[in-house]
């Protein structure tokens, strides 16, 4: 496998070193904006300082979240962050072709992921490792994609977690169709209803497919939660390049509710997503949620964010870290002690070590995989191609050349 470095970086010495980023005034403003609290309409239940904000509308949706449950959410976030950092490091060590970090988006993903139930379905993009984890997908399975041994491997049905999707926004229509199917199957209308959550980014909102998803879901009353993680950036482009208005307001033009939630607040993400899912289960879907969060790392391991954003911006957002506020809340209110936090850290380290072990020992995929599962039923043309190629390969093996 050739170096993925080639994606974006000239070879060393190929030209002048990348210049230091010189963000424009527009970027500075964008940065400052991004560090705001997301505006008046932001739903928040836990402040960055770890104080609980009460909401008559949303508190009922987290009435069951006692200290133990909150410790669970905390642990989830720490584990997926640790796994994320490990994967990032493994990419640097050449074990993964690329990694797409979720750093900073743990609350949005764990909160919304934990809001789903067994019969629900999630349609992710490519950054939802945290959601995958909440759906019971072993993160080892996620690694295969980024090690480039497969394009995806988990059992989507068992986990209620569709394959990753790399083409921006087009999974949103697939999710819409799935949710329509839930409705057609009579699974909508009461507390036992099923629903679907589809994930996409701020950049994706510009794609025609996302709009068509809005149109279809509205027209067919699909039980679908559009969960937009607005992490402020689409690679190098700030959200202002996609919209004049806060993204949650997009829903107003279609006639369904849109809401902005603090994407760094796991309680708010859980509550708001549960609320939205309830609406959908009862036939009042769809709902758009904009989770206002921040991509704390690069877009992917091939990206260099210093070219387009100020480090100040990151510093501001660090103050709103999704994990720290839960830790502060638990510590302050006696919901957890040092021992607990240490244990979680140890669990996370073990979790990461396990991933690492697995990754380093992952077997190379066999050449036949190229030809497998192109079709469900066979294709004589392709069968012939496979046979010809495999016997060509055998020729090398026989000649000792391979």
């Amino acid at each position, binding site marked *: 496998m050739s170096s993925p470095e080639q994606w974006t970086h000239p070879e060393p010495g190929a030209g002048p070193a990348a210049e230091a980023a010189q963000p424009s005034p527009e970027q500075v403003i964008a940065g400052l904006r991004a560090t705001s609290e997301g505006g008046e309409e932001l739903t928040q239940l836990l402040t960055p300082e770890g104080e609980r904000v009460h909401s008559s509308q949303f508190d009922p949706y987290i009435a069951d979240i006692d200290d133990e449950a909150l410790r669970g959410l905390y642990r989830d976030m720490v584990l997926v962050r640790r796994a994320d950092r490990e994967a990032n490091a493994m990419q640097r060590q050449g074990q993964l072709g690329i990694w797409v970090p979720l750093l900073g988006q743990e609350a949005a993903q764990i909160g919304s992921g934990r809001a789903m139930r067994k019969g629900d379905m999630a349609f992710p993009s490519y950054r939802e490792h945290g959601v995958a984890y909440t759906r019971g997908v072993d993160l080892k399975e996620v690694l295969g994609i980024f090690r480039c041994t497969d394009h995806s491997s988990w059992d989507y049905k068992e986990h209620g977690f569709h394959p990753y999707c790399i*083409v921006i926004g087009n999974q949103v229509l697939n999710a*819409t*169709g799935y949710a329509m*199917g839930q409705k057609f199957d009579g699974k909508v209308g009461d507390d036992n209803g099923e629903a679907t959550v589809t994930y996409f980014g701020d950049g994706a909102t510009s794609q025609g497919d996302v709009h068509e998803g809005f149109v*279809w879901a509205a027209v067919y009353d699909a039980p679908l939660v559009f969960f937009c993680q607005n992490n402020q950036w689409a690679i190098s482009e700030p959200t202002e390049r996609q919209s004049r208005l806060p993204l949650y307001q997009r829903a107003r033009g279609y006639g369904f509710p849109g809401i902005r939630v603090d994407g760094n607040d796991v309680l708010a993400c859980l509550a708001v997503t549960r609320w939205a899912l309830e609406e959908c289960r009862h036939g009042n879907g769809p709902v758009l949620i904009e989770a206002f969060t921040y991509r704390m790392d690069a877009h992917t391991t091939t990206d260099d964010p210093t070219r387009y954003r100020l480090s100040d911006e990151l510093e501001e957002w660090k103050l709103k870290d999704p994990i720290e506020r839960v830790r502060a809340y638990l510590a302050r209110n006696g919901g957890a002690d040092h021992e607990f936090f240490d244990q979680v850290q140890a669990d996370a380290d073990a979790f990461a070590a396990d991933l690492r072990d697995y990754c380093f020992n992952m077997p190379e995929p066999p050449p036949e995989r190229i030809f497998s599962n192109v079709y*469900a039923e066979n294709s004589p043309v392709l069968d012939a191609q496979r046979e010809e190629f495999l016997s060509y390969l055998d020729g090398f093996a026989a000649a000792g050349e391979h």
Partner: protein
Amino acid sequence: MANEDIQKLTIGKAINLGLRRSMEANNRVIVMGEDVGKLGGVFRITDGLQKDFGEQRVLDTPLAESGIIGTAVGLAVRGFRPVCEIQFEGFIFPGFDQIVSQVAKLHYRTQGKVKMPIVIRVPFGGGIGAVEHHSESPESLFAHVAGLKVVAVSNAVDAYWGIQQAIDSDDPILFFEPKRLYHSGAMRTEVDTTATPDPLFKSRVVRPGDSVTVVAYGPSVKVALDAATAAEEEGKSLEVIDLRTLSPLDLGPVFESVRKTGRLIALSEAPSESSLTSEIAARVQQECFYSLEAPVLRVTGFDTPYPPAKLEEHYLPDLDRVLHAVDRSLGW
């Protein structure tokens, strides 16, 4: 055999009846597209289905092709078997990304865990005197995309069975229908609905002959057969093969025929550049290298956008152009 088992059907009615049979046999089959419900489609191919199967199984969708195909993907994931109608082939392109990136690849992406039993019905081809985008032949684009299967029917019997077989298949299928022949009385044929149909993905010799082989598909099969009849009067015997499936190509019968005749004409309404007829020529020259007495010749639409319909009689390969090619081949 009961009388109603054998029906004289146009191609359009045959597809309509085939759809009905599939919907009766499996309640996960749903039909979706623009105007397919109340109106029965602009060609009336889905006529009566919404009335009998309801609005939840025959969906008049919003007007957007990516939406039609993209939601069909999700419905397929949910276990439905969607049959999408694209109103005219020229309007399939807004849905191209969903076809290429999702429909064609999900089974591969998931190592077989997600099946894509979607049929995308596409009325195609020219000869109806229509305005722009209503007469094209884009099938080669789909034949080039791995993960899709592509079928083109030429007659009512194949239309009746083919649509049912396509719906039964667990693979995604682009199903091209010869729109100018939909309601042609000349193509009305007895369809024995109790027969055992030929397999979907096989080509077929539809007229035996021994001097030149002509391979065609969809609406061009009729042109080839007409040419064969005309050629016969001049004492030339054409063997006509209906490809039936465009991907994966079943060229066995073509190779066999060329080994006999030594000459091949590949016929299609589509532009020739990087097309299905190119593929046929490429494979035949390789497989039948020593049998060919003349190069494979192609009779196709020109490499231009589809012209204003007043000119389509010149654009579309007709009997004369086929015969001209036959003469060139024989005179090589």
